[in-house]
């Protein structure tokens, strides 16, 4: 059985934490200051890195990766063919929603790891019933 994790970290939470302009910055700054056990996926890390590359430059994108590497309470779940298959099944189940594969794999990983809370600013991440932290605060 997979170890219990307290919260899943989606790309939005990482961007809100790193971007002082974001309306959720204060909330995620407070949450990351004393985090519980956290989980994310390699797809989220790639998405966050892509965001920094597109919005800023390679220096900021590398700083984002350094930030991820410094986050000891954050476990990064690798995404292989089984996670991809589970993500595709969720994309088919929720085909009326504009979910990305990153979102869908996140929904699968949350369920598989019995995650109690989702750190995201995207309402789609509540599709399987795991509460979003932005609604709890």
């Amino acid at each position, binding site marked *: 059985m997979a170890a219990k994790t307290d919260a899943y970290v989606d790309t939005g939470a990482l961007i*809100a934490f790193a971007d002082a302009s974001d309306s959720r910055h204060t909330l995620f700054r407070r949450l990351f200051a004393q985090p519980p056990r956290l989980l994310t996926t390699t797809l989220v890390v790639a998405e966050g890195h892509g965001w920094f590359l597109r919005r800023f430059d390679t*220096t900021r994108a590398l700083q984002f990766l350094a930030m991820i590497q410094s986050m000891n309470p954050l476990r990064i779940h690798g995404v292989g063919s089984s996670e991809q298959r589970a993500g595709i099944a969720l994309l088919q189940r929720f085909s009326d929603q504009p979910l990305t594969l990153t979102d869908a794999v996140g929904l699968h990983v949350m369920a598989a790891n019995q995650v109690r809370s989702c750190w995201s600013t995207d309402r789609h991440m509540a599709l399987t019933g795991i509460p979003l932290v932005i609604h709890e605060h």
Partner: protein
Amino acid sequence: MIRTQISLSEEEYEAAKREAEKLGISLAELLRRSLRAIVPPEEGPPWMRYAGMVSSGDARASQSIDDVVYGRKD
């Protein structure tokens, strides 16, 4: 203060000198300010140095990631 030496290309040096003159500060002060802007201050757990490391000017930045990464739909 620690004294150090850096190498700049002629273009970088001229551009930095012009910017420093425009701001009314020395070249050294300009370089110190640039460093402070890019190197986050130490504070709390190691990852907290990165809290607010950028300011995109977009209050909805974390809600429009897909538009930036994957492109907006036409």
